């Protein structure tokens, strides 16, 4: 059987971010894959060391283009823990609200990308149209569709007045109806299922071997979620379900992410109803006493780890960012083994790679 080497990336319709994947295929079946990343590497971990803590909040926000708020949350929590600051409850609620809104926006964006890769342009258009509801809310709240600049060290910079909260709740209802439509497509639409069932399967054992996190792990039966296991911000005051599936293929991941969006929507409603009064931020000193902190959050793609070491000056000695896409990339070679060429974009989309995160 003749072997063809198919280059996917760094520029390719199936990739929205630069990633180079060399696939060796026999006929339509992939036998080998070589991965090369680093095209979006900006050396952020070095830049962190040359900016002070206040500046770094905005540099951290630009590690990832989609889940920027969760990065600033993890970073600010770390620095607040080093400073021993007591963040006011209203700030924690607002911070959590933005985290969940961002999760819905990230999952809807991902659903659109997956639909576009399997040729379902209608669902791509619908997913990105309904995602605008969430983006508009975030833009009206914080001033930025994606880079929100909401978090500061010691609290948040935005506030919600009651009747604006009321208008958000109204918009949540038709957002929920739209997500129900997507759930319907995933459960009933025949061609969607035919293209996603049994594709890119990862067993629980493979997930544990490659330390994969987030919806990809939950879709293979691993019940882990930082919001419940290591609650941060206001997650300990919310009750929500962690969605777990067992098939471990692209279809299961779609189910997990879409159901998670519905859960996030319920959490946003709880947050808005139980929003406590009080100050928005606490004044934070510019110099951080020497120490180190490991701050973990649940990004839309999984466990996000920030290690910050301070040396007493106003600049961090070291900020290490481990984004959830890195282990997912490690497990990619297992998923790409012996699959059909036509399924490569589906598998790539199924894992929901955020290359800017992985490259930093």
């Amino acid at each position, binding site marked *: 059987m003749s072997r063809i080497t198919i280059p996917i990336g760094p520029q390719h319709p199936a990739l929205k971010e630069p990633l180079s994947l060399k696939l060796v295929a026999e006929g339509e079946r992939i036998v080998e894959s070589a991965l090369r990343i680093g095209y979006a590497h900006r050396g952020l971990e070095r830049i962190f060391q040359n900016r*002070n803590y*206040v500046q770094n909040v905005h540099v951290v926000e630009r590690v990832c283009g989609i889940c920027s708020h969760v990065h600033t949350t993890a970073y600010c929590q770390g620095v607040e823990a080093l400073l021993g600051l007591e963040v006011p409850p209203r700030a924690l609620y607002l911070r959590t609200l933005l985290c969940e809104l961002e999760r819905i926006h990230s999952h809807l964006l991902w659903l659109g990308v997956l639909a576009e890769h399997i040729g379902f342009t209608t669902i791509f258009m619908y997913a990105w149209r309904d995602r605008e509801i969430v983006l508009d809310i975030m833009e*009206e709240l914080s001033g930025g569709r994606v880079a929100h600049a909401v978090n500061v060290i010691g609290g948040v910079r935005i506030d919600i007045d009651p009747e604006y909260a009321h208008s958000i709740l109204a918009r949540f209802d038709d957002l929920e109806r739209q997500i129900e439509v997507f759930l319907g497509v995933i459960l009933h639409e025949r061609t969607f299922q035919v293209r996603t069932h049994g594709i890119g399967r990862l067993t629980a054992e493979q997930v544990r071997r490659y330390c994969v996190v987030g919806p990809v792990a939950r879709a293979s039966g691993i019940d882990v979620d930082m919001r419940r296991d290591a609650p941060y911000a206001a997650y300990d005051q919310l009750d929500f379900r962690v969605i777990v599936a067992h098939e471990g293929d692209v279809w299961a991941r779609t189910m997990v992410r879409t159901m998670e969006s519905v859960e996030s929507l319920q959490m946003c409603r709880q947050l808005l109803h139980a929003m406590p009064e009080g100050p928005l931020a606490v004044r934070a000193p510019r110099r951080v006493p020497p120490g180190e902190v490991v701050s973990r959050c649940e990004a839309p793609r999984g466990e996000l780890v920030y290690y910050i070491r301070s040396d007493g000056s106003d600049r961090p000695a070291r900020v290490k960012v481990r984004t959830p896409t890195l282990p997912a990339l490690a497990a990619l070679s297992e998923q790409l083994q012996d699959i059909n060429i036509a399924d490569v974009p589906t598998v790539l989309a199924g894992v929901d790679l955020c290359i800017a995160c992985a490259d930093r």
Partner: protein
Amino acid sequence: MPLLRSLAHLLTELRRTLLAERVTVQFPFAPAELPAEFRGRVILTDEALCKGCGLCVRDCPALALELERQDREHFRLIHYRDRCAYCGQCADSCPSHAIVLSNELVSPSQERDTLTQVLVEHAPDSTG
């Protein structure tokens, strides 16, 4: 039967979309309504407020602000719009609320020099 229903699953949503109003905003031919909170052009509320303390310059993550100071009275605040990320940190760090972000969309430009702008020109004897 279930197969037929699963083959025509999207029809109800198609009908709803057909009747609903189009979502495309035809920017730049139609105006893009920006919320009040939108972080747009960096402007000075009042040039007199700026004391030239440089707190904004120190906290700007993109190093987009520069203070050229001869002495207490003669200083210039320069804003490099080609580096600015519109994060709003300068507005936060400014103790006298001189520098703020309007919600006016900053249109792109091809000549990089036009993006360098002197925000504050503080020389009391010349302005009289």
